[in-house]
């Protein structure tokens, strides 16, 4: 008794509504169940921007939100920027992309190759936590930045060594961004700050994207994404989102866009004997 014409991925636990009153309301299309896709009204689907990765777009029924707060929980450099590549390019238009306190230096060749005009990149570096959040809010509210990127693990309070000329951001073996040591504390974003950033983003029709540690706490954001690396791409989980249930195991294949960054499929007629050498060279195809 689904009222929508397209068949979504219905959850297996969908039971038909029993009470007669509820059935009647459903017939009159006055009930919406979260398992259904969003009603196809002009206002709502216009708010989603496709990420051009078909698996993700299907799972999210359209794409990523056009404005608001997005939280991406992942280890550094698993492919999060590559995932957002088309989204960033499409959202940018003639506005700026603000990058606040990036973990490393940016390489203009790479960003230009992704299709982003580097004249539109605004870098704000070496800021304390409150300055970073304030700059993010200013950029979002002004309406002149389409997207603002921020790394939560680099928000530090207290005198950082960088101010004294000594900081170096290093990633250690566990894959966490090494916080500049001693004297500076990292405080994750709390609920109030997240809400404030979301409101600022909506005021200026912009998106705020915050990169966080894996399994960080849930906040009031439009979309939470958790990334896991896979040989040929990523595996996404969506622990929380607006207007939809959480999702798990969305596989993104990067072989179309980034063929060099996928572990090549082993051809069927090759059998490995020992398999212990881990620093061998393999021919890429």
């Amino acid at each position, binding site marked *: 008794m689904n009222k929508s014409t397209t068949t979504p991925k219905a959850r297996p636990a969908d039971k038909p509504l029993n009470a007669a009153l509820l059935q009647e309301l459903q017939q009159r299309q006055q009930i919406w169940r979260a398992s259904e896709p969003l009603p196809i009204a002009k206002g709502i689907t216009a708010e989603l921007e496709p990420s051009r990765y078909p698996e993700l777009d299907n799972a999210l029924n359209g794409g990523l939100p056009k404005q608001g707060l997005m939280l991406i929980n992942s*280890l*550094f*450099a*698993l*492919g999060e*920027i*590559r995932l957002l590549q088309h989204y960033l390019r499409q959202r940018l238009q003639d506005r*700026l992309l603000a990058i606040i306190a*990036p*973990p*490393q*230096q*940016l*390489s*203009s*060749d*790479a960003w*230009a*190759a*992704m299709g982003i005009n*580097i*004249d539109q*990149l*605004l*870098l*704000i*570096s*070496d*800021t304390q936590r409150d300055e970073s959040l*304030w*700059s993010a809010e*200013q*950029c979002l*509210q*002004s*309406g*002149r*930045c*389409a997207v603002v990127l921020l790394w939560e693990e680099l928000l530090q309070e207290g005198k950082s060594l960088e101010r004294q000329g000594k900081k*170096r951001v290093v*990633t250690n*073996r566990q*894959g966490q961004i090494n916080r500049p040591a001693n004297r500076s504390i990292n405080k994750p974003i709390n609920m109030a700050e997240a809400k404030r950033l979301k409101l600022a983003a909506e005021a*200026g*029709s*912009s998106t705020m994207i915050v990169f966080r540690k894996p399994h960080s706490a849930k906040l009031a954001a439009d979309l939470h994404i958790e990334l896991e*690396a*896979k*040989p040929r791409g990523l595996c996404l989980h969506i622990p929380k989102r607006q207007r939809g249930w959480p999702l798990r195991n969305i596989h993104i294949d990067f072989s179309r866009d*980034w063929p*060099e*960054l996928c*572990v*090549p499929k082993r051809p069927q007629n090759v059998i490995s004997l020992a398999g212990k050498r*881990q*620093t*061998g*060279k*393999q021919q*890429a195809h």
Partner: protein
Amino acid sequence: MRWLYLHFYQLQLDHLYREERLVADEKEGQAASKTTSQATSQALSQATIIVDGQGNEVCQACELAQQQGIRLGMGLAAAIAMQAKLRVLDYRPLLEQELLQQLAEQLYPISANLVLQAPQGLLLEIRSMLRYHQGLENYWQHIQQQLQPLHYHYANAHSPWAAQLLARNGYQQLLADTPEGQQSLEQSLARIPCSSLPLKKNSLERLSSLGIHHLERLLKLPLKEISRRFDEEMLLYLGRLNNELKTPLAYYQPTEIFERQLQLFYEIYDSETLSKPITPLLKQLQDFLQQRDLQAQQVDIQLQLRNSESLKIELRAIRGEEKAERWQALLKLRLERLELPAPVETISLRCEKHQQRGQEHAELFSQHQGRLSQEQLLDSLQARLGKERIHFLQAGNSHIPEHSQQLCNNANSSQGTSKDNSQNNPQDKKGSSKNNTNLPLPEGLRPSFLLKQPQQLQEEVLLFYGPERIQNPGWNEKQNCERDYFIARNQEGRWLWLYKTPNKHWYVHGYFA
């Protein structure tokens, strides 16, 4: 009657009262501390005199003081004998000069031909203004409105010196250009004592010894006789008085640079309360700019501290701004971060850099409505964070990955060449600052993030793609760089950009985020 002279005999005192009144109003408006409000109310009710440093004579006295018997020209001792509770201030001719300048600026929109007659006078040429104001009464009304609540004597005459003489002797009259007016002018002139003529002391003594006490008698003497007994100065003066000789006058020109100084009555300890006294200065700046149709690009504020070096604040607006609110907002951002090592005594504001008003922003028609334009956003960010933390990327002219981009401080769209701010590897000095939009992208894959300093490889990785050799043979050993780049994946699934040197050392140089 072509000339009007305004003699401000109490300029410094009036200025003092005006400032005190402002302070008192402000304090009444807020819930002020008891001591300051008491102090100001005391000041207003006290008799004040201003003493000339050279002769220790009273040169300006307020009404209260005059009621108690103090006259101008008295010695200081005599004045104190009259009234013990006096507030005595030094005469400051420089301050009066500045005030005169400000008055001239104020009156300039009404009467274009002004001459500053320091220390306390303004000479206005009326005839050219009468048609614009449609009559002498209207003109005078406008001027009077501007000059409240100052005290001054005024007079008009056919020659500038006659007007000056009349005004300085306490006349407050405006005469019409009729035969009766002419007659009364002559009568007034006749009654002026010769001792108030601006001539040398010898001449004045000679005049009094000759028995010529009033101007009437002087004017009756034939010029030939005067020339025999007195020097040229007297002849010139008399000629100019009668309008037979022309006087060269330098008319007032409005200044290009806006400069204001504010002496605070109470020291300010807190940097946030500084915005209160600076706000009216910014409003004056706005008027100044709007009158000239200019926009300010930089405003310099200097804070003079007690027993300490003065602090300078520079506020910049990339695209020029004349509105006081915007400057106030930028000032507030800067003041939040400002620490005062000592209390502030004087504030001075100066604006030199301005430009013609440009066109309105094209973003008026863009879809995304926000509060600020791009330049205003950058101004706000710079005001709070400082210029050195805001950067734009620019493609660099080098195939070495470290130098393939540079950071620059200004947006590329507004300038062709930009400052070179690249982080140089000490080895290489490549990287010019041309506008490099035409450079082709490298064919190989590049990582989104590059490490500032390549680090040694410390974990086990699987190589998947490579090698790509990037080589830059330099003139000496240090500049040589020969690297074979590989793309590798580590245990957690992160993709790294490694390179191998000829010594077979492996380094991590970037991450494919």
